[in-house]
């Protein structure tokens, strides 16, 4: 599908969608969003590239192999659970440190659930893309 309109649109849409997916991922704990939703949206951005250009282009944009991303995501989610274990709490208990941000009333919470959610994000993103690429390459 080498439609010029689609290709041009994708070029502008791509960064916006990816940024928005990361935005959804990061705000997820307090507002609608989260790793699952973010991952799906991120996959959409790369899937558009696979349609408008080619699977190859899309893979190049991603830079990492899908199975590596997937494994890394899973590892990250699991390791985020180990932190609780080390602190003497049950596996996957949350732990966080608060980092005050100047000009914002609430401090930023660097928490294990954030890393857990990033892991979910990566797994969902890579699996969705794996299916999309597989279908596109058929």
């Amino acid at each position, binding site marked *: 599908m080498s439609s010029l309109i689609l290709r041009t649109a994708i070029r502008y849409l791509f960064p916006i969608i990816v940024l928005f997916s990361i935005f959804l991922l990061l705000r*997820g704990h307090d507002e609608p969003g989260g790793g699952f939703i973010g991952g799906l949206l991120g996959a*959409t951005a790369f899937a*558009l590239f696979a*349609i408008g250009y080619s699977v190859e282009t899309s893979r190049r944009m991603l830079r990492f192999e899908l199975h590596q991303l997937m494994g890394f995501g899973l590892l990250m*989610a699991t390791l985020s659970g180990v932190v609780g274990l080390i602190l003497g709490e049950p*596996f996957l208990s*949350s732990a966080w440190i608060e980092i005050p941000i100047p000009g914002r009333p609430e401090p930023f919470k660097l928490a294990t*659930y954030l890393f857990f959610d990033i892991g979910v994000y990566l797994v969902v993103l890579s699996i969705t893309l794996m299916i999309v690429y597989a279908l596109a390459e058929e």
Partner: protein
Amino acid sequence: MLIAVLLLFALALAAPLIDRAAGRWTGAVLALGPLAAFLIIARWLPDVAAGETITQVHAWADALDIRLSFYLDGLSLMFALLISGIGTLIVFYAGTYLEGDPRRGRFYAWLLIFMASMLGLVLADNIISMFIFWELTSVSSYFLIGYDHHRESARKSALQAMLVTGGGGLALLAGLIMLGVAAGSMEVSQIINEGEVLREHAWYLPIVILVFAGCFTKSAQFPFHFWLPNAMEAPTPVSAYLHSSTMVKAGVYLLARLNPALGATDVWLYTLVIFGGVTMLVGAYLAIRQVYLKKILAYSTVSALGVLVFLTGLSNVDSPEAAQYAGKAFAVFLLAHALYKATLFLVAGTITHETGEKDVTKLGGLRRKMPLTALAAALAGASMAGLPPFFGFLGKELLLDTTVKNPDWMLPLTIAAGVAGFLFVIVALLIAVKPFWGALKETAQHPHEAPFAMWFGPALLGSLSLLFGLFLNPLARPIIEPTASAVMGVPQEVKLALWHGINLPLMISVAAVVLGILAFLGLPIISRILKPFDALNRIGPERGYYALFNGTLKLASFQTRLLQSGYLRVYLFITITMSVGLIGWQILQLDVLPIVDQFREIEVVPFVIENLYTLIVAALILIGTFGAVHSRSRLSAIASLGVVGYGVALIYIIHGAPDLAITQFLIETLTVILFVLVFYHLPQFPRISSVPARVRDLVVSVAAGVMMTVLVLIATNLETEKISDYFAENSYELGQGRNIVNVILVDFRSMDTLGEIVVLVIAAVGVLALLKLKPPREQERKNNPHEADGREEAS
């Protein structure tokens, strides 16, 4: 103790990177890990020797009685020191043994995972944690045995070991849970005090049978012994480690561990003595019938495991003196065997590494080329043959003492032990003397003395066989005494002496050595006489394994043909009718009248005004559904389904569930993308169903709709405390988030989420494998058969 286990797991993760960075020093660098674990655990040696036990508890899933708890007494200390100590030398050895192998990093990762699991297994107090470590050793050993995965025999042996030990593991899990329930505790340290309760318990027999199933498969007891010699497909350091000193001893460990709790009954005593005794003799006989170095050692290991099971059984006889001897003999033989067997395996690896020859009949005269290796082999061989003053001598003396002291069955037991001792002498001579003495034989490679890392380990372990024998009380006793106490369940006082006076055991020993040497010299003749009996192997238990294996495959393909039609509509039909049938049947048992009554109270006009938006969207969804069913083109059918999907998302928004709505929108969007990808490849959109089939589908779908409606109505009318209230109240307090859905996903129920993404990844691996495993195209296969086959194997 947690630190020691975690350290090794962490090191396993880092091993591939360290391998890349450290190059030829990898073995030495990585060996520091197990060494540290050894030192951490050895710190407790004085306490344990003084009769203390140490317990450490870490929270895990307390509600399920699952804890990561550790328990250190003589038995676990002995095993933990062997695992980490021999592990250090093995890791060091393997660095040089696998020099230049590009997969060495991966090898180390699996070896260290195995080591950590094994350490966890013997240290674990909670039986569920212990079982998890137990299974991890099976899984990691699968990868280690199948290390040379390009060879079919390696893959097959790895699978065999996994299936046999894994099958036993399942039985063990059931047995351990029943044991925990019966004893009223999941902690080993408490279970071993509940012997009287357990022996009277109605579940005693099933528990014992299930535990035996787990232990006998893991420790290669007859008739499950066949997997162990096949596992020799693994690289030699692995064989030396897993299949002599650690993994195969896990079953022995568990039997000895539970001996105070489950022992002292006839079932326990006779089963262990008979199975152990048979394994001891069958293993030793099969060992002298082999010509390959590693196979000889493998069968002799089977035999040694039999001895240990035999002694565990005998520690339950009525005569207290004989029982005490058995406990002592168990501890001594365990240590002696681990030391000499690891040495001999490593020596065998070194010989094959240097000469390229595995067949012991084609080796000879290597002592001049490899003096240090020959020395290590001689030390270990002398210990195995049971010559004084080596530690193995004491092991054999105590074994014979035990059988001689037995009031019943003295004769058959002593003869069995004596014959095993005699066969051990032959095995020791085959491994430690045959390759090194006599005239030098030509081999494929020119042999040289092995590099430092490859003679250091064997030489150290070989020397220990001698040192433990020479300094029995200062060196061996601190560890032997608490081990024997743990096996017996009551504190023991152990005195060790090589010289027991001129008695029956000593005379049997002397006879075994003399006859062993004679038999070794006459082995070519004996082999010729025994050759016709080798045909018996073909009707051995391994045939049962293959019958079961092939039978399972046949059953699987039969039921696949039966159930897997390959048509999506059939799957949907079956799934939906089953759920409607099962759930509907349950609903019919309930009283649904109050729910129906609710509808009478509804006043139409206010209801419509209040729910106007929802009703409009619901109408849209209905229109979309009819459109999808009736459309004549695929494009409009998909578009109609899109209306349904977005309609549902709108309802989520109206009712205040933005997360669900976003997810639904995204899924709908992705569906469109996927559809675009496959659109051109799909066939025409004809109406293929006949009228009766359409009527049937109509009935099924209406039934499903009705069932779901009723189900939702019932669920929303349940008068129970709702868990959502708890989540809503505690979301910010405990989970630090205002988005309840997300807090549930990543905090309250994060274990579920983790499980889900694990399932996703497993499914993705399956999808990937199916897509990549397509058979090569006909043309390619014709052009280059080898390459095509190779690829198939690799992926």
